[in-house]
């Protein structure tokens, strides 16, 4: 955040590289189908949580429709491949561009008259509701509540070499690593980091010193929407089923928020820490059923009331105390 000197930048890059290596090597330690599935899940949530953290932590835009953005891309790609027989990867790209456009559109509408963080929240929450009702209601197209099975993602030589599960994990992990590096460049290396931080601090002052606040917000939204779209489409193929339950507020947004806030919103590795911790927690409270929602509710209350700065800031303080 505070202008890092050249030395610290190198350290951060090293940390990121180490994290990437660890992510890729995880399946060597955690073997077996179950673990591989959970790790893949975690990688997707690194992307969702990072995008939420970037939008909220750096541009003050509280997007409460991460699931809908992911779902738009998943449904687009899934429908195009299953109904029109189109090729997978190009439809994933199309779906992600669609998600990016919708995210940018929502951001644009919310910022037309500078209605602030509350309005973005209301608008995106309404949009999430629109999405869920739309895909449930258009039964002839989407299969309604039960959803539909898209044709499996052709994994090519990678699949025949490593098997489907491992290939999916590697794809998701590479996407997560890519997201981390994009966020690192955006937040810490480029002038965008400072400009976003200014916008987050004081919008009127930002505008008055020459920052096109709306453009910054819309651009960041488009980029986040694109990342969410990529992850969302792949998540659909990974689950093998595209249905409203996978792309509901309860199954994606809540986890992404908890992960991003716990780790530290607006930081690069915060969402990663959060995803690791809460993927583990989630697996362990899954048996609770609907009441796990209450657990997350209580968690959000406690996190925000007492732990708003997040893990990264806390770690920074601890390490400063130690060294």
């Amino acid at each position, binding site marked *: 955040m505070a202008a890092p000197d050249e030395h610290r930048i190198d350290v951060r890059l090293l940390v990121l590289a180490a994290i990437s290596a660890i992510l890729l090597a995880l399946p060597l330690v955690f073997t077996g189908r179950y673990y591989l599935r959970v790790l893949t899940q975690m990688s997707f949530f690194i992307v969702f949580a990072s995008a939420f953290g970037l939008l909220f932590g750096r541009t003050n835009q509280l997007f409460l429709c991460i699931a809908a953005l992911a779902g738009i891309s998943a449904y687009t790609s899934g429908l195009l491949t299953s109904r029109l027989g189109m090729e997978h990867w190009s439809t994933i790209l199309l779906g992600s561009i669609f998600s990016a456009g919708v995210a940018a559109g929502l951001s644009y509408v919310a910022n037309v008259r500078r209605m602030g963080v509350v309005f973005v929240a209301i608008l995106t929450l309404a949009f999430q509701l629109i999405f869920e009702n739309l895909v449930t209601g258009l039964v002839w197209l989407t299969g309604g509540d039960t959803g539909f099975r898209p044709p499996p993602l052709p994994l090519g030589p990678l699949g025949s070499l490593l098997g489907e599960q491992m290939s999916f994990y590697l794809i998701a992990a590479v996407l997560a690593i890519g997201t981390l590096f994009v966020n690192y460049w955006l937040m810490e290396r*480029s002038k965008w980091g400072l400009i976003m931080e200014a916008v987050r601090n004081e919008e009127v002052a930002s505008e008055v010193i020459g920052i096109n606040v709306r453009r910054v917000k819309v651009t960041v939204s488009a980029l986040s929407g694109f990342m969410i779209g990529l992850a969302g489409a792949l998540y659909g193929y990974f689950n093998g089923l595209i249905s409203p339950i996978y792309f509901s507020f309860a199954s994606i947004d809540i986890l992404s928020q908890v992960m991003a806030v716990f780790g530290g919103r607006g930081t690069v590795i915060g969402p990663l820490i959060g995803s690791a911790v809460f993927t583990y927690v989630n697996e362990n409270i899954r048996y609770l059923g609907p009441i796990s929602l209450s657990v997350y509710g209580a968690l959000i209350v406690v996190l925000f009331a007492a732990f708003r700065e997040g893990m990264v800031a806390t770690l920074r303080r601890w390490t400063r105390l130690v060294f």
Partner: protein
Amino acid sequence: MKAAGSDGVLRSLELGRGNGASRIEQNTKSDQPLTSLLRMADERLMEVRDVYKYFGGLPALNGVSFSVRRGEILAIIGPNGAGKTTLFNVISGVFQPTKGKVIFEGKDITRLPPYKRAKLGIARTFQIPRPFAEMTVLDNVVVGMLANGGGSVSVARMKALEILEELGLRDKAGTEVRKLNVQEKKSVELARALAMEPKVLLLDEYMSGLNTGEVERAVEELKRINKERGITIVWIEHILRAVMKLAERVIVLNFGQIIAEGKPSEVANSASVIEAYLGRGMAH
């Protein structure tokens, strides 16, 4: 506190009638003839044309017109609620006027958003400072530079350090702005504005809260910015002592209208100005 304030106004008005005024006359005389000729011939940098601004039917600006010459220091004074800050908001684009125009370098900028006006060369500070509180002093200035094009982060950082040096903020460069006091925050805002390399600087009560010695220093600082950087300054101020010393021209605003305009000495003697301030003193 309010009573003391109006006392201060009276005293400064008297000051204006006496020593202050004569010193300003001397200053004008000592100007070289060539420069004053050039000044007279110089184009207008900015013009406010018949601007009205209503808030829910109440006029904050009621037909204000004036122009700003390139390179001058123009002070805007007037009692609280006279519409001074509203005027700045209209010029910098934070508000749209209900009626009227703002012209900058011959171009109508009335409908331009604030960030475009910034890029044209209009910078401002706020009466209640609005720095980027959770960023360092240095980053506040750097972002002022980067927002207006201005090359790479590292180049901007070096230039920003020079500005901080000049304003005596060098040793605070790494401090988060929220930890500074109000005066320091105002200086950070000024530094951020200077980083934009503006043509005109709109300062909103830059000196309020300063003691006598600090006002002297601030006056010198603004004089230097005006002379060395060639930046035109439009300046809202309550401390008339400083206005008398620094301003070349003064506009007096009351109830959203210009009630007097001229050299500081002339304005200080104008009956309507004294009335406006006295009226304010009595009202409290």
